[in-house]
């Protein structure tokens, strides 16, 4: 049952890619801005809960709610102040490079504050579902891993259903497709931008709390997490949350299988070579073209 266990391990890693890919893709769909800071919100979620619960001694639910509230308020304020000046002002800033810079700066800012508040050690939020790993027909399921997988499926699935089957979701897509056209239809593009920015920040924070018992976070973990999310989001052309979700899971499984069967040491190298080859072979099919041409 080595194969089965590898697939399970891959699914858990993959769901980490997947959730951040979905967050990146959904917000890009709304605003045409890549959010590099998404992983930092996850880090703040995990370390914030750890700090409030372990160091400050607050009860766990209070610690979680406080942390999420802080993340939400901060994301809202960031949109109202920085993005509002950048995008809604008389001198509107456009182009992927400029807007990229804003979230890049945000990422560094959060890292700096986190270093002051939480220190430089590896910490993690307490495990939410304690106990031994579950075993079924010689397959082993880590409880934390199952939580991560469930979270990924719920979050990704919810976004997919929202965008595909609701008018609000289609309006969300319209914002990123053509902001002028969206306003003509009576869609409030700014409201969508801050709602989704805040929503994805909170989702990232929740996911950081659930996931951190597996890997452990430091104040610098955010950038790594963002990048793994970017990789999977790129396979959805940065636009299709459903595809980003599947891509994230697939990359995770592929990574685990390559590590388990081919070579543990060079598994990642082979993985990225394969992924690069796939992009070169089917740029359009994988959505890269739409990501580049807009």
């Amino acid at each position, binding site marked *: 049952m080595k194969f089965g266990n590898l697939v399970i391990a891959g699914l858990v890693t993959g769901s980490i890619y997947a959730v951040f890919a979905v967050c990146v893709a959904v917000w890009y769909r709304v605003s045409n801005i890549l959010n590099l800071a998404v992983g930092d919100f996850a880090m703040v979620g995990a370390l914030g809960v750890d700090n409030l619960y372990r160091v400050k001694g607050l009860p766990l639910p209070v610690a979680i709610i406080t942390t999420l509230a802080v993340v939400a308020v901060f994301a809202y304020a960031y949109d109202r102040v920085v993005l509002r000046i950048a995008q809604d002002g008389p001198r509107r800033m456009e182009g992927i490079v400029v807007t990229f810079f804003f979230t890049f700066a945000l990422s560094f800012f959060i890292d700096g504050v986190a270093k002051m508040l939480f220190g430089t050690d590896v910490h993690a939020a307490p495990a939410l579902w304690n106990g031994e790993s579950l075993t079924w027909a010689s397959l082993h399921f880590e409880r934390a891993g199952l939580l991560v997988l469930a979270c990924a499926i719920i979050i990704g699935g919810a976004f997919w259903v929202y965008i595909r089957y*609701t*008018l609000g979701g*289609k309006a969300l897509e319209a914002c990123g497709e053509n902001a002028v056209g*969206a306003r003509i239809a009576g869609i409030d593009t700014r409201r969508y931008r801050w709602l989704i920015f805040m929503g994805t920040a909170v989702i990232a924070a929740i996911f950081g709390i659930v996931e951190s018992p597996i890997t452990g976070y430091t104040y610098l973990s955010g950038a790594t997490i963002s990048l793994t999310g970017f990789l999977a989001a790129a396979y959805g052309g940065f636009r299709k949350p459903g595809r980003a979700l599947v891509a994230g899971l697939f990359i995770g499984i592929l990574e685990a299988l390559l590590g388990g069967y081919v070579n543990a040491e060079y598994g990642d190298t082979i993985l990225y070579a394969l992924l690069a080859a796939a992009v070169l072979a089917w740029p359009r099919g994988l959505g890269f073209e739409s990501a580049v041409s807009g």
Partner: protein
Amino acid sequence: MSPAEEGRSGAGANGAGAVRAGADGAGRTGVSGRAALNVSNLSVAYGNVVAVHDATFTVAEGDACAITGPNGNGKSSILMGVTGMVRRRGAVEIFGTPAPNGDVRWAARNGLTLVPERRQLYPELTAIDNILLGCYCWTRSIGKARKSAPFGRAIDLFPELKPHLKQLAGTLSGGQQQMVAIARGLASDPKILAVDEPCLGLAEAVARRVYDVLASIHEQGTTLIIVEEAPKRALTLCNRRVEVRNGVAGAA
């Protein structure tokens, strides 16, 4: 500085970019005579560039009103200002109710919808989703939107779109895209439909088809405002004309 004065100084600075528009508010009226749209002293400026200066005109219910004039004289800016797509000075009333400045959704909910220049579709959404989003101004329920009369009417008006409804809007031809844009406008259930350059870049036969559709929309009781650079085609359909010309008050 009053809006009028500011407009004038801007006009002086920008020469050909500036416009004064006017029309015969009390002139020929439409079927019922009730004012559908009442615009007084409308000015629109982009930064220092004044695009529309002190436009005053009335469109009666049932009218088909053409806004004509040379390129770059502020015709589109009038529609942008009236619908709230850009900030304006001056007053706009839709069926007697003053329209809040810059609120497109309010205008759409109260019966004034814009079919914009260059269509402004969502290229990576399907044609049918583009049209459905026209319903967004009055509902959030996709089921209600799909079953609604305005949506059905918008779809039925363009039988030639039927085979292309599942296609991405960006892959449609220019004529088909224009039809999707008009259908999206109709899905919002407008009492006044403002169409900006509906035939821009279209072949003659397609342009004629677009005007046939506009005529049938007008016959069904929708008040039309059509912006056209060349008045010839527009005037086959329209009973009124507002001439927008650089510095010339244009009742025509």
